[in-house]
């Protein structure tokens, strides 16, 4: 059995009196595309920096590709690709010089570079220019190339589509699909929930430095409360339905509720005794699930 690509146990980080991450225990399997969700300040970037050994943990431990992560140790870094949340490159270097430098430091041949440049439409003319002349989007494209050009076994991507236009985002999703097909494990931190829902097998949600939930996208949304929209032929009192869930909107002939899966059968039975005109039960999107977690 192969080792997990990422394994953390009680991982935590405090900055002075502020707890940025607390007791994070997580396992990401090899070949998986794993989404890491949370609002600003939830601890996503801190987690990635702990995994990279940039920060010394206040508690717990982590392993990457079967090897323990030690502060300042770089043994596993030859197998990693990393895209920081804030892309900063050397403005005076040309795009190609940046890619050459980082490939050389990676100690792996940039076997994927040509394909990535083509898909992200970064031509020779662009690569011959100093990075300081790039737009935000071009800089982000170059950052994606540097992260994936050496075919890493594990890619840690922090907000990878920030600054990309929708067309390039589509190209990026295709790149992720190819990387995954090659067996690359992808750990993707993002605010863009439809993106996570689209590309990730599993997601973890973080709130105020603590893990709120983890699971596959379908299971998480399945476990979340349903949005039930009920329309009646006659006026009804919404208070009769309040015991089944949370009434979010109440009009004389239309009621909207959030109901757990367990209470759905009882609700339907109750509605059968009322002047029901129409019934709609919606499974929430990941975004709705996410928002409900943070409400």
């Amino acid at each position, binding site marked *: 059995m192969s080792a997990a690509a990422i394994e953390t146990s009680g991982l935590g980080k405090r900055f002075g009196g502020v707890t940025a991450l607390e007791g994070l225990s997580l396992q990401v399997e090899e070949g998986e595309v794993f989404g890491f969700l949370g609002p600003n300040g939830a601890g996503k970037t801190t987690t990635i920096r702990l995994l990279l050994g*940039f920060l010394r943990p206040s508690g717990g431990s982590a392993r990457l590709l079967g090897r323990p992560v030690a*502060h*300042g140790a770089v043994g596993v870094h030859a197998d990693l690709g*990393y895209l*920081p949340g804030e892309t900063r*490159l050397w403005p*005076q270097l040309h795009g190609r010089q940046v890619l050459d430098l*980082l490939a050389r*430091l*990676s100690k792996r041949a940039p076997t994927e570079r040509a394909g990535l440049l083509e898909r992200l439409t970064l031509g020779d003319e662009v690569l011959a220019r100093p990075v300081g002349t790039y737009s935000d989007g071009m800089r982000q494209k170059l950052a994606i190339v540097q992260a994936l050009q050496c075919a890493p076994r594990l890619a840690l991507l922090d907000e990878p589509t920030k600054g990309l236009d929708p067309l390039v985002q589509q190209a990026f999703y295709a790149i992720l699909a190819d990387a995954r097909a090659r067996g690359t494990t992808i750990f993707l931190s993002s605010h863009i929930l439809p993106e996570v829902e689209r590309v990730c097998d599993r997601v973890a949600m973080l709130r105020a430095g603590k893990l709120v939930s983890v699971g596959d996208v379908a299971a998480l949304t399945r476990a979340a409360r349903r949005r039930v929209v009920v329309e009646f032929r006659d006026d009804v009192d919404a208070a009769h339905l309040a015991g089944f869930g949370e009434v979010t909107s109440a009009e004389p002939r239309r009621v909207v509720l959030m109901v757990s899966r367990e209470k759905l059968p009882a609700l339907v039975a109750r509605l059968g005794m009322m002047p029901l005109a129409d019934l709609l039960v919606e499974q929430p999107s990941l975004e709705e699930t996410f928002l409900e977690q943070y409400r």
Partner: protein
Amino acid sequence: MSLWGLLGFQWRRNRLPLLPMAVGLGLFQAILSRMAPVPNESSWMSAILAAVPPQLVALTGSDIAAVATTRGFLAIGYGHPIFLLLLGLWAVRVSSGALAGEIGRGTMDMIASRPVPRWHQVAAAFLVIVAGLVVLCAAAWGATTLGASVRSLGVAATAFLPIAGMGLLLFAAWGAVGLLVSATRRDGGSAIAWTSALMSFSFALDYLARLWQPIAALRAFSLFRYYEPTRILREGLNGTEMLVLGSVTAAALLAALVVFQRRDL
């Protein structure tokens, strides 16, 4: 491999300003060679220098009797604030830009996420500092050699090699101190400020202690105390002084390695 990669990267980033600095230093030494008194002009030069306030002569790290000779005059160039400033500028620029500068610009993440041991970053920066100092000292010595031979000043240019070597050692020590400061800071600006302040304080301490007897004993605490061009010219290299500068360099480098290895990025 990553050490060579970083070395090449640091060198490419810093070599551009090195050229005008080397040319400037060479020109400065060439001008001094042009102005240097030939042996039969020494008494005339002594008369002129007698009118110069001793505080100004002390700025060059020499005394009037030494400066009035051809060799002594040429040695001024190696203790002159311009020489010290340019070598100091190089040491501060590279040391501050390499560690704290990369962190401040956010580019450290790109390097640190590669299989590059942190000590490689410190070592690469130090080697680039030394390489640049070699270029600057060679430019100064080359100009002295050329100037002395063109004017037939009758001095052996090799006499100035130990001075240039000691100058290199002094600023290698400052480079190591700069790397230690840089390893503790989060941006290049504050690293530049702290290292420059330390260097200026050390220079001022040496200067004042030479002029004011009550604090003369404090000179030992200034790195500039261990670099006196006219004395090196007169007495040759002093093993203890070399040992002090070498020890400070080694200790500061070691401390920089430990601090940078242990710190959060």
